[in-house]
């Protein structure tokens, strides 16, 4: 049976792991490669690196992190942040990344998804969706934002998720901007709305503050993987503690490191 996944997320800026609230107020958390190794040893099922600056001049720093991680860590990892060209996908995969996460460019140039999937397979094309609850004509819905949550698009998140999957996305990394950094738990209605409407796996992200939130993301949000940062970075819980908790809640998890 397919096991549920726990994915620690490493937001990278200036060659360091940082963490903020609502995409702001960044704090230094440590060296990305040694953090990646520690999480892998604790039993993380996968890792995500997000280059939150996504500045072209920082690309060599990111590539260096990818290469060094690939030499030391033998679980899958995804790299994202500012990818705009198919050639960037190729370079990251060759450096050792297993998947790339595309966000802003996926909205602006959808052929990047199509081309990336055609050349490297859907399995390595993750589309990251940052969604925020909005009121439109009295009813709630979620709209997607780009550029690290700064730009509103007016695009409906559920429709967009279905569209990117039809274009070739193999996975959706879904972040609730309302919950990110709040430690109040995932936006479960959002997660469920997307997970129930696309045939590909959904990784829930944004808002994890305790271990019950991880269980909820899967049970009530219907996500196949849960992503968290601060509860692991701040040393509150190890990955193994999180997995033990999820197993006690009846979820199938991988317990060997």
């Amino acid at each position, binding site marked *: *049976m*397919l*096991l*549920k*996944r726990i994915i620690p997320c490493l937001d990278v800026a200036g060659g360091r792991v940082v963490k903020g609230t609502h995409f702001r107020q960044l704090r230094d958390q440590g060296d990305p490669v040694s953090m990646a190794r520690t999480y*892998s040893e604790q*039993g993380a*099922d*996968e890792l995500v690196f997000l280059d939150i600056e996504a500045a072209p001049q920082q690309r060599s720093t990111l590539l260096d992190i990818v290469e060094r991680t*690939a*030499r*030391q860590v*033998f*679980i*899958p990892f995804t790299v994202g942040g500012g990818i705009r060209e198919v050639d960037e996908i190729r370079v990251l*995969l*060759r*450096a*050792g990344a*297993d998947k790339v996460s595309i966000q802003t460019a996926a909205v602006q140039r959808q052929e990047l998804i199509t081309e990336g999937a*055609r*050349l*490297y*397979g*859907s*399995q*390595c094309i993750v589309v990251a969706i940052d969604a925020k609850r909005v009121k439109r004509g009295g009813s709630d819905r979620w709209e997607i934002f780009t550029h690290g949550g700064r730009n509103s698009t007016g695009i409906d998140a559920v429709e967009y998720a279905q569209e990117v999957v039809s274009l070739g996305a*193999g*996975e959706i990394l879904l972040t609730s901007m309302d919950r990110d950094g709040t430690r109040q738990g995932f936006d479960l209605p959002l997660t469920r709305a997307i997970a129930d409407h696309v*045939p*590909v*796996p959904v990784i829930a992200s944004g808002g994890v503050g305790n271990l019950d939130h991880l269980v909820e993301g899967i049970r009530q949000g219907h996500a*196949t*993987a849960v992503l968290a940062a601060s509860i692991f970075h701040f040393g509150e819980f190890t990955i193994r503690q999180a997995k033990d908790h999820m197993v006690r809640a009846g979820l199938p998890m*991988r317990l*060997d*490191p």
Partner: protein
Amino acid sequence: MIALVDYGAGNLRSVQNALDTLGAQSVIASTPDGLMHADAIIFPGVGAAAPAMAALRARGLDRALRDAIRQGRPFLGICLGLQLLFDSSAEDGATCLGIFQGTVDRLATTEKLPHIGWNTLERVANHPVLAGLEREAMYFVHSYVGVPRDRQLVAAETTHGVTFVSAIAAGSMIAVQFHPERSGAAGMKLLNNFVQYARVQPPTLTLPRKGRGI
């Protein structure tokens, strides 16, 4: 020396990194010559079947791979490197290497596809490369699966809504649908088994298929 088959689309780097960690020497081989002189061959792969086959043919590697497997050189196929061993793939209608009879079909499951993540093995046959691995979780990333005509080839199965073949083995050839180089300690164990096997294994003939000159 273990040769890693390079046809421009494989995840060579991660496999080579894993071999480095295990202290096994490896070389990237993009020509038939490179394969000819190797003690053992690893055939990794990600991506789609048709472009991979086109790249293999353009380099003359299709023939070299058939020869190496027939000669009984220790061989490990990974993911697409398993699928390409069969006759054809439904992924894009590609004609594959045809070393083993069978097809590559889309996984007929009602569960989510691609099948991404950790899933457990059910070992159904013994092979030295699977020693010590019974029901371990391995990392899978795929939507298509190999369907061998000869059930004797099946070494392990996995279930994702439906049960499919997650490893095949015959003689000194083994191929796995999951990614051992991405499967943590369990995957490293499999790769280490292969490294040890490649060191001690005298060539044993792998069943050539009947009625076809390969």
